């Protein structure tokens, strides 16, 4: 069989590394290049890991991820809110201090520059957490589109090691390491506190796994990053914590129908097609992309993002063609994979709007053969509601 690609140690390409790179390699992680970053895709079976085990740990206990490759942009100043409102499609004026929201930066065409989590850190201070592959593009975009506002725009991407602690036991784990009152932090809110002896650490109840959990932002030096990583693993031992890589990160977000830039959203896809209406506040009378979105809605949406479940034996994967019942090519898979928790083979795909109804039978072309699939409701997985 053809061997899997891996990034060998001592690679000479211009691949970037997070401060935890040596730690991942020390732990025996299989490394892969992702958007210019040398990242762990999964950890070894010998320590109880592997994509499936990591995925299940997050769904039933807790798993931790190095997500330092993501970027951070701070907007601060008297017109910071106005600046954010101009470039972001959601309504940041609804944010209380320490509250966050999912949003997107749009091009004038109503298509995506990137998706983003907007955090309000202070009266006039906002933190945008953005994708790894779009760090430079986003920073240039934000800076160039907010010049007219009295607001400083800073690229803080290299200032933090960001660790995600995800799963129903994530809060139990983090509680052992911080003096912050985590019970007071609702989902999509942030707090600051002492963490592993470090003062004033930002901790957000956010994540990309469709589970409860936190993302912490600690100083980016290697020694501190490694110390905290290992302390988190030690504190989480009683909850069955495992380190998790990009492989399980992808299967987790897919089950939760969370978009991935370059797949479900891109510079050729608009907000309506992607089904992200509820994060786009058209009642905000001005933001980049609004005019085009209004026109697009009036003209009618031609294609829609749907969830597919395979009904015949086979795995739909990124880029595979979607066929209608008569075998005609009508769309394509944006993300597809086995779903370890649901134990089904699922996919997200763009299809013509007339084929987007739940229950519509389609086929996915797998190595030349049309394999049966059906449009299903999304998200495929929703975490169980915790009793009060």
């Amino acid at each position, binding site marked *: 069989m*053809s061997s899997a690609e891996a990034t060998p140690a001592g690679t000479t390409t211009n691949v970037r590394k997070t401060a935890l790179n040596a730690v991942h390699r020390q732990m025996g992680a299989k490394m892969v290049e992702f958007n210019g970053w040398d990242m762990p895709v999964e950890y070894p079976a010998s320590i109880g890991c*592997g*994509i499936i085990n990591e995925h299940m740990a997050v769904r039933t206990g807790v798993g931790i991820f190095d997500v330092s490759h993501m970027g951070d942009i701070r907007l601060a100043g008297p017109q910071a809110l106005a600046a954010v409102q101009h470039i972001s499609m959601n309504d940041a004026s609804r944010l209380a201090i320490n509250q966050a929201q999912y949003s997107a930066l749009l091009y004038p065409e109503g298509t995506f520059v990137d998706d983003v989590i907007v955090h309000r850190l202070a009266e006039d201070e906002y933190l945008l957490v953005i994708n790894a592959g779009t760090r430079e593009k986003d920073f240039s975009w934000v800076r160039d589109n907010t010049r007219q506002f009295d607001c400083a725009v800073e690229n803080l991407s290299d200032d933090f090691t960001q660790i995600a602690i995800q799963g129903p036991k994530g809060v139990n784990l983090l509680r052992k390491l911080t003096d912050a009152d985590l019970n007071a932090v609702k989902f999509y809110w942030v707090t600051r506190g002492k963490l592993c002896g470090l003062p004033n650490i930002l901790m957000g109840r956010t994540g990309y796994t469709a589970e409860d959990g936190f993302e912490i932002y600690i100083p980016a030096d290697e020694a501190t990053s490694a110390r905290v990583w290992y302390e988190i693993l030690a504190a989480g031992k009683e909850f069955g914590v495992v380190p998790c890589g990009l492989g399980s990160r992808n299967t987790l977000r897919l089950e939760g129908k969370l978009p991935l830039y370059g797949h479900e959203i891109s510079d050729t896809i608009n907000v309506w097609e992607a089904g992200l209406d509820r994060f786009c506040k058209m009642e905000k009378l001005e933001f980049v992309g609004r005019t085009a979105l209004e026109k697009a809605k009036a003209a009618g949406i031609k294609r829609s993002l749907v969830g597919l479940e395979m009904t015949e*034996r086979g795995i739909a*994967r990124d880029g595979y063609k979607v066929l209608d019942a008569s075998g005609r090519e009508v769309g394509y898979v944006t993300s597809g994979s086995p779903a370890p928790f649901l134990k089904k083979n699922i996919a997200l795909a763009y299809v013509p709007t007339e084929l987007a109804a739940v229950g519509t039978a389609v086929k996915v072309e797998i190595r030349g053969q049309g394999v049966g699939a059906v449009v299903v409701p999304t998200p495929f997985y929703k975490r169980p509601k915790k009793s009060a």
Partner: protein
Amino acid sequence: MPYPTDRKYTKEHEWIQVNGNAATVGITDYAQQSLGDIVFVETPKVGAELTAGKTFGTVESVKAVSDLFAPASGTVTEVNAALATSPEKVNSDAHGSWMLKMTLKNPSELDGLLSAADYEKFVAEEAGH
């Protein structure tokens, strides 16, 4: 790990165990380790003709699809149905999880394959890159 000496190996990480004119084929422990969790095995139908060095099916991990290459030419006589429901068996016991059985068309093809010792050396070099 010591590779079983009762079979031969290919550089594409398949093993082939021969008994007269009949052979059994699977993938090696190194292969399953590289792949990670195996979720799908696609084998040819009984009666299919295999050509040495050509692809005969696929093995899929969560993240990727990998081709399987025929170690020898011949006709498929049996496929392991258990792998359709429990593909993870290949992870837990790669050398004990056969994928297909075949009758060999040209047994001398096996002379070109690697012994257990040669395969071990090959894998050590590949892993050390």
